[in-house]
């Protein structure tokens, strides 16, 4: 039996709802109710559910971007909030639903990539020269099938597919143990979806991470994942 890499226990999350007139908090909207599941090492878990059911919220909680109201998330047996930032960065990375929103609009792609690749070496306590960083960058560009021309460009100059690949490169380059893909195909044209799906399948072959694959498409989840959970109205339906 494999070890559980991730355990989500009784996670509940609500967002405040404000009145329009005075912007005072009037009620809260419960988005996730008592979510409990676990994920084994080196498996791909599909999270299925209609749009608005709280999938992104769940992903953000696991990636420590949002805090749950109650319940806890354990990574390798410890509460995720007990890890220092640096340690956690190599554990869980989230590919946001909208890859464009991950890229600082005023910085060029080269800067964004270099920043992360440097951080990768720093997190592994290795002092490196610029040439090593550059070598690593070209290696990563090859992995995500991007030409080095993008380095000089700004996020708004890229196509949807290129943005997606840049975003993947950025989460990939820290080699997380768990990679969460939040509807990775939804921001793409239909013509690109098949191509990117193959790409993700290759990625899964190449990098033996654990994956959480969030989607609203049952066929996709079955194609990509070893296990599937379904969420509806913030609750888990079936496993």
């Amino acid at each position, binding site marked *: 039996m494999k070890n559980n890499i991730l355990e989500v226990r009784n996670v509940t999350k609500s967002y405040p709802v404000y009145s329009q007139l005075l912007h005072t908090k009037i009620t809260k909207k419960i988005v996730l109710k008592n979510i409990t599941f676990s994920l084994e090492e080196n498996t791909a878990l599909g999270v299925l559910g209609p749009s608005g059911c709280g999938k992104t919220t769940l992903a953000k909680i696991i990636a420590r971007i949002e805090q749950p109201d109650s319940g806890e998330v354990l990574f390798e047996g410890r509460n995720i909030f007990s890890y220092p930032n640096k340690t956690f960065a190599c554990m869980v*990375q*989230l590919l946001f639903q909208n890859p464009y929103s*991950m890229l600082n609009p005023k910085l060029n792609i080269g800067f964004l990539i270099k920043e*992360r690749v440097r951080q990768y070496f720093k997190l592994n306590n290795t002092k490196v020269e610029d040439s090593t960083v550059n070598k690593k960058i070209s290696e990563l560009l090859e992995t995500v099938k991007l030409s080095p021309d993008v380095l000089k460009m700004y996020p708004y*100059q890229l196509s949807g597919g290129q943005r997606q690949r840049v975003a993947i490169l950025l989460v990939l380059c820290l080699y997380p143990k768990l990679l969460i893909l939040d509807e990775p195909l939804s921001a793409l044209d239909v013509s690109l979806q098949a191509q990117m799906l193959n790409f993700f399948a290759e990625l899964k072959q190449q990098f033996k991470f654990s994956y959480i694959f969030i989607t609203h498409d049952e066929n996709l989840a079955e194609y990509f994942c070893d296990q599937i959970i379904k969420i509806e109205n913030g609750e888990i339906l079936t496993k």
Partner: protein
Amino acid sequence: MIKLLLNRIVVLFITFIGITVITFVVINISPGKPQDMMDMSTRISFEAKQRLVKLYGLDKPLHIRYFNWFLRVIRLDFGTSFKDDKPVLKKISERLPATLLLNILSLGIIFFVGCTIGILSAMYQNKFFDKLTTIVVFLGYSIPRYWLAILCMIVFGIKLNWLPISGLRSVNWEYLPFVGKIWDILKHLILPVAISSFSGLAGLARYVRGSMIEQLNCEYIKFALSKGTQRKKVVFYHAFRNVLIPVVTILGLSLPDLIGGGFIFETIFAYPGMGRLGYEAIMARDYPLIMGIGTITAALTLLGNFIADIVYVYVDPRVRYK
């Protein structure tokens, strides 16, 4: 990029001409004539008066006078002051450094202190520091500068006797050692600089706070944080860099306010700058001097905005490539 610059320069030039025309017309239609002052002055002889009236063609129609004035200005000849016959350019260049010193220091303080307060209150939103600065900032907004100037002069200058309240140098400045000279000027600058930057600083701090909060809520900031770096690094490299772009524009736009406010502000502090010279010139209907100061002020303001434009183009990639 070059096309963009050329475009800006042409617009700048047209604006400049527009400003000088308006200044010229407004001064000439305002009541009171320069001759009135000259009649009261015994230092100017009748011949000099005649020569001046003729030189400036005070009897000729307005548009011809403007045109003549413009032709001379192109050759950097601003004429001589009606009051004491000194070249306008010389009078201005004596006063310009003090004004530049005051305004550059004020702008610098507005920029650094305003941004620092804005960033910190955004980072610690709704904490004690944020609430405190919010109060101070709203005071800065609502208190008129001139009233605050007089209040501070009374408190720090007269009651506490900590700071000098007028001029730029003490009477015994000449005899001070070098360090003493600098310290003396600094002491004279504290009140004018502090007060002239206060309201601008308040506005900027408020603006930076709002924009920073907006930036910090963006997903790319959350993503940048997920790589495990310190929050302050991300705040600075990612969020503040983006806030900096409009800040540069705002600073450029606050320049006319600073320089224009200087006319009354410098007079209150008896500050030996161009503003006070301008105030005196207006009171004396000293046309050449008023026009000279108006022109230099307009040129400085436009230059400031031009620099802001260039910096803007430099920091915003989307402008740069279009």
